């Protein structure tokens, strides 16, 4: 089964052989190819280059083509402020400050204007290049957030003063959403995500009044066209989970503030699949690979199973370290690595391993090979890695000591943590992780050991 098929089955709330993995690579794609966000979001070639790089690094089951909630607003007359390392921001609102505003005053939404043609071109190119393996997500600006782009902060007061006009505006924005959904699907997108972060700021009653009818217009349209839909809200939407689950979307995806176990119970009660909710800033942007793995394990334990898509809570920040994203994704992609991370990362959180003391490698006469394994008696790759170390020790002329550390035991976890080993199995030579997961051939390993032995001999002579 391809990753694309896994992602689509998960969105449909069907059983999958493993959790689906959809990293929301938006402007982060620009950083992956060494470009600035502004030029990236104005070039279909760069967008696709970023997606291909993300595919190579993260092995995703699905990817958004662009994550830019300002596309529609730009066409409707909002001015944008561009940033080098983030998506643009809307700075003017066409209906703001007008006491006699009307939704019909907005210009006709035209798919040939703004950056929409280049985005659709990017969809077609991505479909041709990676679309067989990766589900393509078309992200559109949700009706409430688009209405806020039109009215500015006035919308919050107009929800009390001009209820019917705001309802009409939301429905007008839904028409824009339907046009975008149609274009995305015609050009090759598999899943249409209606991204509506501003609904995190309103009550369930207001959601039901202003958002539900507009969102359902879009979801029904997508369903009629044979597509799949996702209701995606960045921000703390705890109070609106129930009312979101009552809309007619296929999937709901949420941000890091949400309690995933409670979210899953609500969504599944309404037959919806779930997505989320890796922590963007503290974990993916500022944390370590171990933090990212632990955060992914938290998501999977609370929400994993049928119809679950592991994904970040929102658009990945531009400069997120790729290793952290890959580490999080690995927890969905590789059950073995998930088991290893459970044993090591979780243990290292709870234990400082002060009593595990590493040798003074430089002053030991022998070259020491620390082989970190799950258990070479039960795990085939570990068996071969340990065997490679034993064979190299016999084959080379230097004095060599081989020590296996099994992470099924506390001593093994302690060594893995103290040696800074991230993956299993790994061979460390005199305390440095050298061969990670891929088993070296005999000449390569012997050469590496003999080079270390020569260094030590040279140091001893000084």
């Amino acid at each position, binding site marked *: 089964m391809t990753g694309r098929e896994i992602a689509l089955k998960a969105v449909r709330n069907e059983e999958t052989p493993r959790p689906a993995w959809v990293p929301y690579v938006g402007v982060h794609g620009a950083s992956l190819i060494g470009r600035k966000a502004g030029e990236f979001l104005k070039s279909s070639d760069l967008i696709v280059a970023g997606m291909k790089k993300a595919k190579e690094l993260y092995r995703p089951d699905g990817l958004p083509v662009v994550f830019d909630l300002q596309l529609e607003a730009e066409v409707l007359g909002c001015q944008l*402020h561009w*940033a080098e*390392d*983030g998506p643009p*921001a809307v*700075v003017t609102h066409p209906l703001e400050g007008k006491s006699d505003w009307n939704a019909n005053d907005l210009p006709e939404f035209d798919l040939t204007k703004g950056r929409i043609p280049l985005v659709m071109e990017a969809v077609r190119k991505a479909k041709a290049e990676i679309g067989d393996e990766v589900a393509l997500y078309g992200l559109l600006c949700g009706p409430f957030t688009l209405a806020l782009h039109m009215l500015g*902060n006035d919308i*919050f*007061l107009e*929800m*009390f003063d001009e209820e019917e006009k705001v309802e009409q505006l939301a429905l007008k924005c839904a028409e824009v959403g339907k046009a975008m959904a149609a274009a995305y699907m015609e050009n090759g997108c598999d899943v249409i995500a209606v991204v509506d972060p501003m609904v995190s*700021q*309103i*009550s369930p009653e*207001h959601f039901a009044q202003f958002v539900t009818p507009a969102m359902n217009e879009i979801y029904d349209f997508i369903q009629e066209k044979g597509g799949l839909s996702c209701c995606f809200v960045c*921000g703390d939407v*705890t*109070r609106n989970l129930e009312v979101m689950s009552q809309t007619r979307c296929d999937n709901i995806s949420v941000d890091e503030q949400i309690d995933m176990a409670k979210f899953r119970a609500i969504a599944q009660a309404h037959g919806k699949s779930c997505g989320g909710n890796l922590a*963007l*800033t*503290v974990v993916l*942007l500022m944390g370590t690979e171990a933090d990212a793995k632990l955060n992914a394990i938290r998501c999977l334990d609370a929400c994993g199973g049928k119809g679950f898509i592991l994904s970040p809570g929102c658009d990945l*920040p*531009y*400069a997120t370290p790729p290793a952290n994203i890959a580490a999080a994704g690995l927890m969905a992609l590789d059950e073995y690595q998930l088991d290893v991370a459970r044993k090591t990362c979780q243990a290292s959180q709870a234990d400082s391993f002060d009593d595990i003391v590493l040798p003074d490698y430089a002053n030991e006469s022998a070259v020491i090979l620390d082989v970190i394994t799950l258990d070479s008696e039960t795990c085939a790759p570990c068996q071969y890695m340990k065997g490679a170390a034993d064979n190299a020790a016999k084959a080379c002329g230097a004095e060599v000591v081989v020590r296996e550390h099994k992470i099924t035991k506390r001593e093994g976890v302690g060594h893995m943590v103290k040696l800074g080993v991230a993956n299993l199995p790994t061979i460390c030579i005199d305390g440095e992780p050298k061969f990670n997961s891929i088993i070296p051939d005999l000449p390569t390993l012997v050469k590496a050991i003999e080079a270390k032995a020569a260094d030590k001999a040279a140091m001893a002579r000084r």
Partner: protein
Amino acid sequence: MELLNNLTEAVKKGKRKDAEALVKQAVEQKLEAGTILDSLIAAMDDIGRRFKANEIFVPEVLIAARAMKTAMEILEPVLVDAGIKPEYKVVIGTVRGDLHDIGKNLVAMMLKGANFEVIDLGTDVTPEKFVEAARDNGANIICMSALLTTTMPAMKETVDCVKSSGLKTLTMIGGAPVTQEYADEIGASGYGADAATAVEVARSLVSA
């Protein structure tokens, strides 16, 4: 007193016309200006408490703040005559590079509702501009907001700029990606997880 209780309720429900009429009555009845003000502050404190508890949301806060503002426009001249003025001043803005001001506006409104004098510098405010405004106005606190992870470093620059300026002005930060840990890391005086908490933190900072 029933009139003031009704005024508090009118602000809490965002009924600005009722709030306007009631505050006019209170002034005409020569009720003490400070007592009228207290009834308005009580309304916004209740709004803040319920916002923090997720019982109400941004629109409900804004509609109450508008009613409060309407009432204050009538009450302010009376307060001036009585020699009552806000005890503490706050300079507020979004940090350099950040144009997202909904959160900042909410905090500004809640601080005004808590009787702070608020100097709102708007969006995309440089560290130097924060410091200059704090110095010119004798502000007790500089409040900074950021929605984007990419603009968070400008908070540290501003905190550093305040420290190197020699001002004793306190610093507070807030915004979606901001955490207490980040506030500690950059040496900010306080962190507000939401608009209501920001008021609590500001009150505790100035009274410490």
